Structure formats: structure tokens, C-alpha cells
């Protein structure tokens, strides 16, 4: 332990602590048992107020003596006297390691069960789904909302059927464990204001199944030129790139004309933080099962 004092300071601590203790013990015992107390006839104030050094009641003496015994026992059992570790070998680091070992033992079996079960089986298990929801509430709800329906027109709805990065076990595990970065570049400079408006018209029509409408043909042409690389020719998206499907009714950043226009003109940067260092394997698996089953509040 790097934080224990060095040899010199260890000796320093022991010397001062023991000297102070012995001096105090001697003082207390001498006041009660020796000839140290008594009145001081010299000190008289305001004619008749005498200042004495009489000892406190005798129960106080036994009380202070008991405290001294407890102190001696304490520094013998626990670290306190310099580099001496104490008879119990107690340390704060050892204490929490033991707590973690107990914890691992207590829940080891439950974890193994979660990790060996299929996500479909976990979704049927009510207790597991309640645990999953608690994990979600602790770690995910501040962005995705307590009902997992997304928030602030930024953080995606997890209760719908649309999954930008895929909903199979491997994809969800990667999303949670390593995070995702979804980038939509800004298009204002490339297509101009009119182009942005045409694209917005087309994309909104596409989401309502009206992509073939002649009224949005100019937008469709621009879409085929600029957007298909990520969103696909039919607007069905690309899960490799996290490009969302545009031929459904889900909108991460809002589906109003103003929102869609802003998305196309200025682009969007979506980021899912990595939770691999904060959640363990069993917790991630519970979340995967819960999300696959529709993220329902149990």
C-alpha cells in the first residue's frame, strides 16, 4: 500500500501517539489517585471566589479509563500506529474487495443463468424483464426516456419497429457495449435552399407511401443523386452505416417540415455512448432481450 507512511513518519506517528497517550493517562490517574488535586488558596477572585483543581466525579474517572482501554485495543486491532497494520489486517481496499467477492458469489449463479439463456427465453421471464427495466432506468432513461419512447427529438424511440443499427442480438450488443456514431452531413451547400425544400417534400411524401407522386419528382431526382448512397434507392436505410429508413413513419429528429428541413440543411450528429465499461455482460444481455421484446414496462 503506497499510502502507508514511510519508516520515518511511521516512527514519528508512533512516538507522538504513544507519548501523548501516556502523558494523558498519567495526568488523569494522578489527578484522582495522586496528590495532584486540591484547592488553590492563592487564587481568590472577587473576594470569595476560589479557583480549585478538584477532580471531576469519580464515575467520570472510570468512564475515561474505559475509553482509554478501548483506544488501546483499537490501535492494536486496526491500522493506526504508523506502518503497523493491526492484528486484524483490515484495510479499506481489502474490505471492498471482500464485498465484491461476496457480491459475485451471491449473484454468480443468476448471472450464469442469464448469460446461458436465449434472449427469447429471457423475454418470457418476468423477473428478468423487471431487472432489465431497472438497468434501463439507471443507465438509459435519462436519454431515451423512462418509457423508452425517445426524448427531445434527439434520442431514438426504442419501442417502435425501426432500428437504425439493427435489432439482432449482435447488433444490439455492439450498440450498447461500444456505442454508435451516426453522422448525417449537411446538404445546404450542395443542393441549395430550393433543393433542401424539394428533398424535404419528397422525404415526407416517401414516409407516407407517396414517393411516386409526380409533385415531388424534383426531390426524388435529387434524392437519387445525393441520398441513395446511405439511405438506399427505395429509402429503406442502411444498418451498416446507421442510416435510418425513410420509407416508414418513424423520425428520430422530428417529422415536421421544419425538422426535416433542418436535418437535411444542417445535418445531424447522433451519438450513443459506449456502456461496455459501465454495464456487465449479464446486464447488457438483459437489456438486449428487453429491447427485442419491445421495451415494455413490466
Amino acid at each position, binding site marked *: 500500500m503506497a*499510502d502507508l507512511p514511510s519508516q520515518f*513518519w511511521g516512527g514519528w506517528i508512533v512516538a*507522538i501517539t504513544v507519548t501523548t497517550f501516556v502523558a494523558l493517562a498519567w495526568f488523569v490517574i494522578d489527578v484522582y489517585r495522586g496528590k495532584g488535586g486540591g484547592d488553590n488558596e492563592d487564587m481568590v477572585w472577587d473576594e470569595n471566589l476560589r479557583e480549585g*483543581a478538584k477532580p471531576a466525579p469519580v464515575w467520570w474517572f472510570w468512564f475515561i479509563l474505559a475509553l482509554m482501554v478501548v483506544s488501546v485495543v483499537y490501535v492494536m486491532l486496526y491500522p493506526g500506529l504508523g506502518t503497523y497494520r493491526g492484528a486484524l489486517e483490515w484495510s479499506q481496499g481489502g474490505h*471492498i474487495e471482500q464485498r465484491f467477492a461476496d457480491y459475485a458469489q451471491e449473484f454468480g449463479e443468476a448471472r450464469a443463468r442469464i448469460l446461458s439463456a436465449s434472449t427469447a427465453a429471457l423475454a418470457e421471464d418476468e423477473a428478468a424483464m423487471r431487472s432489465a427495466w431497472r438497468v434501463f432506468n439507471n443507465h438509459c432513461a435519462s436519454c431515451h426516456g423512462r418509457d423508452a419512447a425517445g426524448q427531445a427529438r*434527439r434520442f431514438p424511440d426504442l419501442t417502435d419497429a425501426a432500428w437504425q443499427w439493427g435489432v439482432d442480438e449482435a447488433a444490439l450488443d455492439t450498440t450498447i457495449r461500444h456505442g454508435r456514431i451516426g453522422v448525417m452531413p449537411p446538404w445546404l451547400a450542395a443542393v441549395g435552399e430550393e433543393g433542401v425544400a424539394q428533398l424535404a417534400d419528397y422525404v415526407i411524401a416517401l414516409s407516407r407511401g407517396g414517393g411516386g407522386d409526380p409533385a415531388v419528382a424534383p426531390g426524388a431526382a435529387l434524392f437519387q443523386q445525393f441520398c441513395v448512397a446511405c439511405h438506399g434507392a427505395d429509402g429503406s436505410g442502411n444498418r451498416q452505416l446507421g442510416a435510418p429508413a425513410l420509407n416508414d413513419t418513424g423520425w428520430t429528429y422530428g417529422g415536421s417540415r421544419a425538422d426535416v428541413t433542418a436535418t437535411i440543411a444542417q445535418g445531424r450528429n447522433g451519438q450513443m455512448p459506449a456502456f461496455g465499461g459501465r454495464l456487465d455482460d449479464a446486464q447488457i444481455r438483459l437489456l438486449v432481450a428487453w429491447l427485442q421484446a419491445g421495451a415494455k414496462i413490466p
Partner: protein
Amino acid sequence: MNWVSLHHRIERNAGLLIFGILLVSSIGGMVQLLPIVTGDSHAHPAPGLRPPTALELEGRDLYIRESCGVCHTQQIRPLLAEVKRYGPYSRSGEFAWDRPFLWGSKRTGPDLARIGGRYTDEWHRLHLLDPRSVVPASIMPAYPWLAEHRADRHGTIQARMRTLARLGHPYTDEQIAAAPGALDGRTELDAVIAYLQSLGGSMKGAPQP
């Protein structure tokens, strides 16, 4: 020993009384503080720890200005429940560049020692401007003025960095010279977010506990 005459002597000699008081009140400090102050375990930065950049330092000073430490702590205690919730417990080396310490003592809000990377910048932006927009049950006040003020309004960032350099922060002359440029065009909100995202990063991937 005759304690009465000792008492008598001390009480009639102010110099002796002052010396006695200083001696007795210094014993605790000599045992508990001196070995730590002269020891070096606290002076070794944790692996991967770096002093705050100019923008993070500005954010840190804003964290102090807005009294964030009244409701938020920055110390994870070695207790199972805390490590499970916040991450590995805080080590002394992680505070090597904390002048002053912002440990705090009251958690009205959660601990922030490892808040870095937990949320995105965008989330922090929404949350600082209107906490209820992302956490409906939050009682945290909103800080809308952070977005309205530019960072380092009073142009003191270089003086602050030089002061810290004198205290031991390893800021180079180049870093201090580049500081105003790094803050140029940034808002106070940007600075606070940069600071929050830098917290606890040095322990990323550390084994639990």
C-alpha cells in the same frame, strides 16, 4: 505532581499559555497531516491523468461559480453500492490537478466524478439549459445564461493558467499562449460541457472495484 501550581503558573504567564495551547492543538496535525503533506502518494497523478485544457479549466471555474459542488460530489467512496452506480472508487492520484478540490459533501444530485463519456455533449446541452426536457423528475435548476455568455468574458484565462503553473500544473508557455485562441468563439456552456466530459476519464476501463 502538583497540578494546581502548574495551573497557577500557566494562567499567570500569557506567553506560556499561548505556547501550551499551540503545542496541544498541533498534536493531531502532527500525527495526521504532516506525514501525508510531506509524503508523495497524493502528488503522483493517476496514469492517464492530464491537467485540464484551457477550455476545461474555464468550465471548472464556471462549475465553481455556479456552485455545482453544493449539490454534486466528485468522490466515489469505496462502497459496493457506489462503485456499482458510479464506477471505480476514487483514487488519490486522480485529484493531482484539482486546485481547489471539488469533492463536495452533499449529494442532492448524483456524483459527477466519472460523468465524462456517460452522456453525449448534446444531452448535456439540453440538460443544462432545461433539465426537465430530458429528466422529467429532475429538480436541478436550469442554467440558460451559460449559452448566452462567451467563455472567458473577462479575459483572465492566461493569468489563471500562469497561477496554476506556479503551483505546479505542467502548463507550457505554448499552451498558455494558445489558451485565448482555444476559447475563442466558445460559450460558457461549451466550457462546462468540456469540463464535465473530462471528469473521470483517466480511470476509463479500469477493473472494478
